[in-house]
């Protein structure tokens, strides 16, 4: 009872409960829902959002916000393809991801220097760079689809981790790109929990002033945060190419609010200091599930927006209401003696 109440009192808890409820209802409506193939489908669909979300979670944990990540991802993926096609060398697939991450990190550095170095507001800076990076991509790199992606990318796209047959005998497959999400998640979990840098991120998100006072070099940490977030966005962009087998410079941008919604549903607070890798995965999972399952249930896709909107509001609102009630009860329980 008490444990349940405590779960209810966290945003993730509520989000999770709603998600479970959702799944149960869908399972009742459509028994095919509770099959491994659904899970694989979810994993495939939430892949790019998930990778983006990791970087955004770190930024939110540090008390910032990043809306430019999709532009970084699009820029990095397109630039990578241009570079690789330009030099015309046979590179192993890992090199593609390294290049994309490096380009992403470079763009992240721009954010980092403006935010950490100049001390500008993170929302303004990333709003600016969202427009700036995207403009630079379309203006200087090009606007045409790159469909003739190199053989390595195509091969990687066709590499399948798991392939199972679903209820109707079709193949549902988890592409190797899923490993990118796994790698980013593990790496970020290690960074955030087992390195001092990660703890400094939370510390800055908790209180910038206090962090400065105990000798944390805030500027340096902030710059690094945005560089890492940029690199992760670059990986997300490259992953997108391996999924769609083409580089479309118009892709990705536009999903930034969706990614932020997933991260917030996963328990990261927009005011900083909170956010976990696992929670973020949960948030991405829930958003992807809602998108995917509503489609499966034949509900028009516009419902998704409606449901996700509700979830964000309820998921962040209810805990506050519970918290207020608890605080009030706590004070009333105290004796009148001062």
């Amino acid at each position, binding site marked *: 009872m008490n444990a349940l109440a405590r779960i209810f009192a966290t945003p993730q808890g509520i989000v999770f409960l709603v998600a479970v409820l959702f799944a149960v209802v869908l399972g009742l409506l459509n028994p095919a829902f509770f099959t491994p193939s659904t899970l694989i489908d979810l994993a495939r669909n939430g892949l790019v959002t998930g990778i983006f979300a990791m970087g955004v979670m770190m930024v939110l944990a540090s008390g910032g916000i990043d809306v430019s990540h999709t532009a970084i991802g699009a820029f990095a993926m397109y630039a990578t393809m241009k570079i690789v096609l330009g030099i015309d060398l046979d590179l192993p697939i890992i090199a593609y991801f390294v290049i994309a991450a490096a380009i992403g990190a470079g763009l992240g550095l721009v954010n980092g220097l403006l935010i950490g170095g100049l001390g500008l507001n993170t929302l303004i800076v990333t709003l600016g760079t969202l427009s700036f990076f995207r403009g630079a991509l379309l203006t200087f790199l090009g606007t045409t689809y790159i*469909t*003739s992606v190199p053989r390595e990318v195509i091969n990687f796209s066709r590499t399948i981790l798991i392939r199972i047959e*679903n209820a109707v005998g079709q*193949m549902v497959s988890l592409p190797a790109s899923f490993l990118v999400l796994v790698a980013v998640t593990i790496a970020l979990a290690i960074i955030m929990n087992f390195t001092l840098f990660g703890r400094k991120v939370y510390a800055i998100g908790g209180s910038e002033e206090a962090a400065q006072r105990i000798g944390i070099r805030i500027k340096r940490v902030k710059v690094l945060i945005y560089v890492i977030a940029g690199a992760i966005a670059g990986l997300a962009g490259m992953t997108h190419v391996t999924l*769609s087998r083409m580089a479309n410079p118009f892709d990705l941008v536009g999903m930034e609010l969706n990614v932020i919604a997933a991260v917030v549903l996963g328990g990261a607070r927009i005011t900083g200091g909170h956010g976990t890798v696992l929670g973020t995965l949960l948030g991405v999972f829930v958003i992807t599930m809602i998108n995917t399952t509503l*489609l499966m249930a034949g509900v028009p896709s516009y419902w998704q927006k409606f449901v996700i909107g509700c979830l964000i509001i309820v998921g962040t609102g209810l805990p506050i209401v519970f918290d207020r009630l608890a605080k009030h009860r706590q004070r009333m329980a105290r004796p009148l003696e001062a």
Partner: protein
Amino acid sequence: HAQDAKHSIVTVVKLSGIAWFNRMEDGVNEYAAETGHDATQVGPASADAALQVQMIEDLIAKKVDAITVVPNSPEALEPVLGKALDAGIKVIGHEASSLQNITYDVEAFDNAAYGRHLMEALAQAMGGEGEYAVFVGHLTAKTHNEWVDAAIEYQKEKYPNMTLVTDKLESNEQQQTAYQKTKELLRTYPNLRGIQGSAGEDVVGAALAVEEAGLDGKVKIVGTSLVSVAGPYLETGAIEMISFWDPAKAGIAMNKVASMAIAGEEITDGMDLGVEGYNAIKLDGKVLYGQAWVDVTTDNMSEYDF
């Protein structure tokens, strides 16, 4: 003399940067180089009617001689095109035979005929039976709807063993959307055997989903696209056949018609525009039809580099 004057003709396309309209731009540029007219092409960054309206507003302000336009949504453009006509600008449409506020509309072919042609190809691939679905770029895109409507009608008449499983699907001319919707389709209609695409991205998105589901070869895909877009899937056979009309030729034809309109020359039925595929045009009211479609399969894909 009107013929000697330099005409400024701007072609407004649905979306800039995609292969299709880049090819059209090649044609526009070729026309400009050959005739010395000031022919250029512009297009919005996203396929949005409002952005086209804004661009045309600007062109009216810039007092160009003619605007040739490939509209995202003909209805949405009517007011601003009317304004252009009022301002004395010649307006030539393409893929928009329903437009009222135009001087002429140039169509590569009769849309119904083209739709029937694609359906015939799909039916052949499917062996004349099975479930199929159709994509359009936008539900408001007149041309796509005419192709698809004619195709469906043709199927009902000629291939009664084929069934259309659901309403026309909208891809927003995005590969990602076509991909997602195809996945959805396959899940809902496991017996689906054919997909007909309209926008260049439709077949590519559909092919990716079909291939991922391990159904390539089983689900036949036919539609409008370009070799540069659909090439990899034509090669593997995931896409059965694509058709297109050469946008460069269409671009030249539009500009040609625009120049003639500016110069006050009359367009007549059966006329030769001097552009391949438009050698004997059919005139129906303000609409001109050519016979300019091209079919591509694995066998002849190497002949096209756009």
